């Protein structure tokens, strides 16, 4: 049977004349293959479901934990500035405010700087520098947040107190609005410092994602733009950015997600004060910093429950941010397409 195995005609013959035994073994193989697929399918689905189960578990646990506080204070919990363990009156306004303000400062600094770095790296940077700068940015992402916190407390905050805050406070002393935004006394520690540390921490996210998407812009588009006489800025503004906006927004949201939830570095430099102040130099607190600081030592059910309620609020804020990001992406895609 196997004598002329290499002959093409022979092969055809073999495949058409199937013995019963061969047919049985083939169907067994097929069955096994089908089974592996079913198992693999099931495993992937189980893994995906596990995420849903975990997520709903977290929500349920947060809601149950937060119930006493939300039941006691109701909606006013969201708008109350007081945080008084002595009289057991708690409100989330100061932590929410601090979370949003520090994240806003971080994004205001990190996004323009990150986009500029990314554009420089992909378009303008000499080849020799490209790798060192790229690696340095990635290393920045690898530094643990506690290191940022310690550096912020020991090096950065004293520097801010001495060289950044006094001139800003003096310069804007007579300018309306700005004088309340940059009001003293210069503590070094405060919301502005926390925002600046956060900016450094989210910079690598914004930069590396933007760099990757900028790299994906077809060279022909840029070359055509340069060809009709566009300046570098015009190419960046009118070709690269519109082409990559989806990816850039993705990087922005990833950075914002980190800024909103960052705990360790912030708690070192924000001052941990439950106050809502107009001045960016005033100490404040964020949701995650409050939880990290106070949870272990919270005495009484209402206190603990209020901290859990803060966690629930952070969960919602993150959810809303993600939802807005999705919505923006959707609209952009619709407009584009």
């Amino acid at each position: 049977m196997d004598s002329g195995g290499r002959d093409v005609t022979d092969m055809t013959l073999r495949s058409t004349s199937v013995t019963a035994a061969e047919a049985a073994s083939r169907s067994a193989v097929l069955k096994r293959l089908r089974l592996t697929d079913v198992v693999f399918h099931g495993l992937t689905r189980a893994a995906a479901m596990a995420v849903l189960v975990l997520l709903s578990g977290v929500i349920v646990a947060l809601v149950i934990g937060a119930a006493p506080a939300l039941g006691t204070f109701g909606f006013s919990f969201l708008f109350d500035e007081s945080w008084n363990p002595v009289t057991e009156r708690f409100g989330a306004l100061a932590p929410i405010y601090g979370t949003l303000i520090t994240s806003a400062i971080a994004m205001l600094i990190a996004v323009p700087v990150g986009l500029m770095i990314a554009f420089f790296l992909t378009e303008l940077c000499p080849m020799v520098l490209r790798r060192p700068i790229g690696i340095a940015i990635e290393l920045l992402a690898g530094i643990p947040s506690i290191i940022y916190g310690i550096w912020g407390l020991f090096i950065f905050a004293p520097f801010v107190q001495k060289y950044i805050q006094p001139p800003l406070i003096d310069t804007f002393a007579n300018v309306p609005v700005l004088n309340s935004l940059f009001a003293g006394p210069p503590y070094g520690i405060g919301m502005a410092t926390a925002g600046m540390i956060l900016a450094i921490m989210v910079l690598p996210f914004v930069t590396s994602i933007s760099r990757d998407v900028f790299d994906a812009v077809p060279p022909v588009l840029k070359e055509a733009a340069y060809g009709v006489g566009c300046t570098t800025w015009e190419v960046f503004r009118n070709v690269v950015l519109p082409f990559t906006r989806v990816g850039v927004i993705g990087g922005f949201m990833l950075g914002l997600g980190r800024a909103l939830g960052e705990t360790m570095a912030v708690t070192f430099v924000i001052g941990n004060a439950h106050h809502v102040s107009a001045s960016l130099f005033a100490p404040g607190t964020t949701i995650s910093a409050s939880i990290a600081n106070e949870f272990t030592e919270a005495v009484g059910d209402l206190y603990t429950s209020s901290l859990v309620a803060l966690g629930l609020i952070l969960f919602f804020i993150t959810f809303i941010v993600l939802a807005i990001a999705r919505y923006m992406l959707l609209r952009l895609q619709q407009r584009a397409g």
Partner: protein
Amino acid sequence: MNFTRIALATAVLALSSAAANAIDISGAGATFPYPIYAKWADAYKKETGSGLNYQSIGSGGGIKQIKAKTVTFGATDAPLPGKELDESGLAQFPMVMGAIVPVVNLDGVKPGELTLDGPTVAKIYLGEVKSWDDPAIAKLNPNTKLPKQAIVPVRRSDGSGTTYNFAYYLADVNPDWKSKVGVSTAVQWPVGIGAKGNEGVANNVANTKGAIGYVEYAYAKQNKLTHTKMVNKAGKTVEPSSASFQAAAANADWNSQPGYGVILANQPGDQSWPMTAATWILLYKKPADVPATAEALKFFAWSYAKGDKMAEDLDYVPMPDKVVNDIQKMWSSEIKDAGGKPLFSPTN
């Protein structure tokens, strides 16, 4: 066959007797006494083989852990009220005393150079005294050149027995503090920046020009911070030192509160340091783990008897002998196993 059986039996015996000799005690709570507990535990282990695993997670955490029965004893700087002790079946007794000192960061001001009094410290933390050249501070320090610099009050961001004792003192000397802020392990601070733990406050004060903070004396000393002198209840200016802490402790009437829960703030006496504080141990009167609690009592008795020198080396104040006798009588009469047998007798 016979030989192996004997060998096995010996091995089991050896193992079980070793276990009986060295029971590890677990405790959790206050950070304030942590340095001395760690030192005592080290010496005790060398002498007896029994180790102590003490987690300095803070007084509130210590109270939670002992109520959850995850540790043999809890430690707290804020004494539990008698009612709470009775409800939870806990015994409470003071282990050692120490002191809280104000520390400052001012250019050109050396440790012990600045003098403050209680009402002024309260006003600083209420936000009423905002600058170092304020007349209230200048009046206490006629010979020191005070800069026109903003005061940065630094305080604990976590709940803390140190805060409890500090706030208790401020409430005692300033009625505004009592009505506006109150006394607790965590309060609603009108001004200032928060830092986690004694070491957090120490670091923040060391790194912020114009800062004032309050820390346990050992932390101030170890971090070489600029401590201040204080005007005490008798109107005398005192240095923080073992002598002034002991003077404050000497006048305390320990039996006036259930569970010896006497706060030593603002004690009378010319030499008394006004922010002296005791730290307490919490144990179950009917413990679930009898051997561990018995071992813990042995460790505490050993510390009372042989730990005074070590405590003084670290600037803590040992408990007076009379109080220790009282406490040990309480142990033998109140801490018992399920059969009603006391876990501790003062003679052994």
